[in-house]
């Protein structure tokens, strides 16, 4: 692994503000949020439902504009006062909560979509490369099946490979495992870590699941209830590479207790207000 690979994907969020305006009433979703994500880091974002963390991800991805502050990627400005909305692009690919694999394309065609769309591989070449990547990810045999025919766990893995084939600087994951059962999740966690160890991509991962956050992340950022900003940042000093035995280790339990306390405080605020999830 060359040094270049590790030095891509540093995100710098600087006093980001996001305000929504449904039916005329302004709602601030993100309140002067500042955060630095290092290149090659797995950064887990945790917070109560509806606190605005997806808004952050959307802003980074370029799905909507920000109303204040700026975001940079590897020093280059993505969006800021001069340009409110970041361009959407393959350097920051999103893996969606409910999955966005194209149901009308086979798994292989889904994965091959990116390089063909961007024009740096021909269709045949892209399919070949997709085949190789699927094999590496342990998905061999499912190339010609449609997303609707395979399990949701498998779909998520295909979607991650679909993102990775584009060699993005940052992988943006928006609660991708939210709808999956615990058993599938644990398999997917280990699969994700395997991929990470091979590619060292910067991962910006939003989740509700505290164990998931602590297990996967280098750092866990606990967000406040809406409007969100970082409340506390925990350094997870459990060494990588990690496997599932980590879950029962003493250090894990200690960290989990601290993080839970921080999150519950915010979750209670959110609950009392009766806020709807994002």
């Amino acid at each position, binding site marked *: 692994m060359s040094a270049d690979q590790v030095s891509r994907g540093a995100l710098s969020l600087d006093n980001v503000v996001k305000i929504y305006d449904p039916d005329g009433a302004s709602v601030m979703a993100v309140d002067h949020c500042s955060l630095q994500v290092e290149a090659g880091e797995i950064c887990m974002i945790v917070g109560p439902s509806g606190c605005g963390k997806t808004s952050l991800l959307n802003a980074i991805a370029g799905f909507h504009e920000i109303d204040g502050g700026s975001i940079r990627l590897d020093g280059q400005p993505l969006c800021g006062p001069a340009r409110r909305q970041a361009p959407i692009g393959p350097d920051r690919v999103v893996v969606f909560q409910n999955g966005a694999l*194209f149901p009308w394309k086979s798994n292989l065609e889904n994965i091959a979509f990116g390089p063909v769309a961007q024009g740096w591989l021909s269709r045949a070449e892209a399919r070949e490369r997709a085949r190789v990547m699927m094999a590496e990810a342990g998905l061999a045999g499912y190339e010609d099946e*449609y997303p*609707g*025919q395979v399990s949701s766990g498998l779909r998520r893995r295909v979607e991650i490979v679909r993102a990775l084939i584009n060699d993005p600087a940052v992988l943006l994951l928006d609660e991708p495992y939210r709808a999956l059962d615990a058993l599938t999740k644990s398999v997917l966690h280990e699969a994700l870590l395997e991929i990470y160890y091979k590619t060292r991509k910067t991962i910006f991962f939003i989740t509700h699941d505290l164990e998931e956050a602590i297990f996967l992340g280098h750092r866990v950022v606990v967000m406040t209830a809406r409007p969100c900003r970082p409340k506390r940042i925990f350094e997870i000093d459990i060494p990588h590479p990690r496997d599932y035995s980590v879950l029962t280790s003493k250090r894990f339990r200690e960290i989990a207790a601290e993080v839970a306390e921080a999150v519950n405080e915010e979750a209670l605020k959110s609950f009392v207000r009766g806020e709807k999830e994002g």
Partner: protein
Amino acid sequence: MTANDARPSLNRLAETLSSLAEAFRCPALYLAVLGYALMLGFWYLTVQVLKLPRFAQMPALTDVLKEWFSRDPAYGVSIFTRIYYQHILVSLRRIGIAFALATSLGVPVGLMLGWSKTFRDYVFPLFEMLRPIPILAWVPLAIIMLPGDELPVVYLTFLASFFATALNTMLGVRSIDPSYALAAQCLGASRWRIFAEVIVPGALPFIFTGLQISIGVAWFSLVAAEMISGQFGLGYLINTSYTTVQYPTLVIAMFTLGIIGFSTSALVRRVGEALMTWRTRQLAMDGRG
């Protein structure tokens, strides 16, 4: 014949019915048969047995059946006469042309209406102003404006079908999960590619639902148009058999219309299923197929 003798043939009957039931995917075929029998029985009773005064003018079931399947029908229309099929073919031809035109125009217009705000801003107001006008209200204008006898009929059918297709297509485009388009953008797709590889396939299920509605609407308009003006065709047949008091033929025409209409709908649905195998498989996996 004793009860014991009757049993094997009853068993065979039951087996035939249940395998038919599987073929038609109708869990209780015997009940469906019962339903038809009740309807026909009601008809037979009221007209031929009880001879109720209200039903005095209705053609008898046996008369209709005799007429439909006779080699030499009294009013000249049965499954053995050429003219029966001529009427059917004329109606089918008109539906074919009108539906094909409506689809080839309606789907692109609908896609554009759904996809491009500019297009929608300019075109949708006109579209929505013309749509509430019932198709038949166009008849006199169509006769005045379009030359010949055939063209007004086809135009009216086309118009009804076009509105239904375009509207449903537009709604289909706007119902697509926005995540797909966003994902495609993340993956670097140009606007055109998103349209061709995400929007169009994504809207296809809605488009086909719209097409099924559209063909129904087309038949509706066609029959009406044929009844009012036109030569040949099932609607024309209905009208003339009514005015010339050939009531058995009237009923034959109505039932034929029902069967043909159903078949064309089923055809559209089949084509849709063939084009979207990914969806059939997905629905099957969900236990619904």
